[in-house]
């Protein structure tokens, strides 16, 4: 996956509310994006260290307390930037992919005078 896309996916999930990592994995799996938890944790930590995310501990009755992540102001801004970039890219790719008409003929080469 291209750099940034994974972050974009994660931020778009967390944007909708506080999320627990395994919830994120589930969400992505549901969207047919398979990701390992071991990949997710470092990403979350990196985003958190970059002040994009913040978390709070929630006591759980089935194990140690859980970290629930939510978006910060900066994270939201970053998300919007990513979204804009993504839309631009997606539009561009879609436009190109959707075109059906054949290209205009290339002018014939003028190397006959060799």
């Amino acid at each position, binding site marked *: 996956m291209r*750099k940034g896309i994974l972050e974009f996916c994660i931020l778009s999930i967390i944007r909708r509310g506080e999320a627990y*990592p395994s919830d994120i994995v589930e969400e992505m799996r549901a969207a047919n994006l398979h990701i390992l938890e*071991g990949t997710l*944790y470092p990403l979350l*930590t990196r985003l958190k*260290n970059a002040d994009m995310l913040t978390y709070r501990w929630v006591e759980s009755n089935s194990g*140690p307390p859980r970290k629930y992540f939510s978006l910060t102001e900066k994270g939201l801004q970053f998300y919007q930037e990513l979204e804009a970039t993504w839309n631009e890219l997606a539009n561009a790719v879609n436009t190109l992919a959707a075109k059906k008409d054949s290209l205009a003929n290339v002018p014939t080469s003028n190397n006959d005078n060799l």
Partner: protein
Amino acid sequence: MKKVININFQGRVIPIEETAYEILQQYVESLRKYFANEDGRDEIINDIEGRIAELFSDRLKKGSTCITEDDVNAVIASMGRPEDFDTVEETTSRKQTSPQQAAPTYRYASNGRGRFYRNADDKIIAGVCSGLANYLGIDPVITRILFVLFFGALFWVYIILWIIVPSQSVQSNVTKRLFRSADDKVIGGVCGGLAAYFNTQSWIPRLIFALPLIIGLVSSPFNAWFNDWDFWWGPKVLTGSLGFTLFVTYVILWIAVPVATSAAEKLEMRGEKVDVNTIRNTVKEDMESFKSKAQAWGSEVKQTAQEFGERAKGFGQTAGAQAKAFAAEAGPVARRTGSGAGHVIGILFKAFFLFVAGIAAISLFGLLMGLLFGGFVIFPFKDFILEGFWQNALAWSSLLLFLGIPILALITWLIRRIMGVRSKNHYLGYVFGSLWTIGLVSVIILVGLFARNFKSGSEKEDELSGFVQPTKGKLIVDVAPSNIRYYGGDWFGIHDEDFPVYGLNQDTLMLNTVRVNVVKSKDSVYHVHKVRFSRGRNPESSLNSAEKIQFDIQQKDSVLMLPKGFAISKDDKFRNQRVLIVIEVPVGKKIMLDRSLNNYDWFNLNMNGRRRWNANWDDNWENSYSWRDNVEYVMTETGLKRTDKKSDDGYDESPDEEVIAPADSTHPKANQPAKPNQKTPYRYKGNEKKEKPAVDSTKQESATTEENDPTQQNETYPSLIYMLARIAR
């Protein structure tokens, strides 16, 4: 049937099968290694562990009695192994691989063979050693040790390789670390660990370490039989220096290398674990690399063909277009070469600093080693220098701590760096630091105490009684051949003649700090004066030790026999005792000083009033008449004169003058009567003691007064400058 243990995992008590626990531990360890360079490493590991604990709790809640291997494997599968992270993250952040390697398969070093890269993953300086090892398929430790050992010769090779070889993330196939073996140990497990590391039987390193000891035990009866066996390269090398080196090596490894406790560490100790997975991967990768090579070759052919066509096309284009194309092409090329040059300059700069640092480190190391061994050489002298328990204790502690600790620390650091030993605790550094501080303090105290013992100086002067005037008007001064055989000539490997201190046995030290001065007699007869100097803590003690010097001069007709030196015992202590023989030669009489007098040495440890001290190897004779050995001189009114009419050639300062004047006759003080309260420790007062008033008393005075001049200079000049001037001469 499996053993179940309870572990405290993220604050939960979890019953787990022992084998499952080992797998889990390995897994966490592999994560830790994988995220080693990550910023929030501990946090990531904690999060993952927390998640694992949660999954375990789930499982236990569903009715499992304990966590089994299957459970652990299932959890690991859901979390992913580090190598699986790579396939996802490869293009995201961690590594910039060239397009051919962008395929999501895992690269193993065995495939990296054939191309020589600097290893970007496993490097100390630039990854040359590990890249080379990878290329040759050997252990990086071997190449690193080679480069360290042949630092001088291989330095430039390293730099050149650094510049020309591209850096590449070569997945190292050897994840071996040196550990001490906990299972396979006799003393510290060092040999067991080394055997595991080098993949040999553990008796081999054991034998290597024990061999000198065995030889020592075997050869000791012979040594006892031939009491003084000076067979220097034989048993001494094997049992002495080599055995000692190996012993020190063992102890250093014992200190520097941690014990392998966890399962993961034990596996690391033996190198990479080989399982079906890695083998399958390797085979697959081999196949694919072949396929991709074939593809690459095909595309290359195609590309060449295309290029050829384009070139043909381009050739037909106009000159303007060509120039444009050239400009467009030249731009990036120029930029590329520019960055290449920058790269080279950058590396050269780095290399230069590395070189300077390396030289500094090596010279520091050499200096420390020199001081340490110098300290050991001097150590037998300590009984003659130091007194009391405290000074001895201080000497030991300063030698071992102040000098030994830095060497130990340096070697430890080097071993850790090369062998990839990881230390989790930093207590060793603190221990080294505090021990060294203790050493430093003891050095300071020792120097202070030592200097105090040399603080004041005294001299005892007497005229030689029973001196018979030589017949024929000629006095020959000679050194009596010593018939005392001292304890082995090479006691310290220092030859007799080279050192003022020689012929030492267990409790006697021979000093030859003797000097002979020739002055003009004020009357018509020869006089011989013996002046004994010594230093001490106070005037009484220094006078006392000066009086203890035994220096008996014998006379055989016209030959004056001086002893070879004088002995001081352990109880007397070395306090820079010196003997000055002043021979007064009457005008018109002759004197000859034998060559053997050259064997005397003279040095002066001067701890003057300003608490500065210097070791002054005072071997110049400018204070009295200079003389050369085996030359007959006659005393004239103006000074000593050669009887053979030849001038003193070569190194004499006044070759044109036949008469050798007192070198300091131009000195302003030369004609002044000496003031009795001057600071100089000794003034020869020969003529003042004479009953008969001397005719040329002032002249005599000047000649002998000057003898003290170097000491005066010492007090006015900064001693360091003085020393430098002496060295420069």
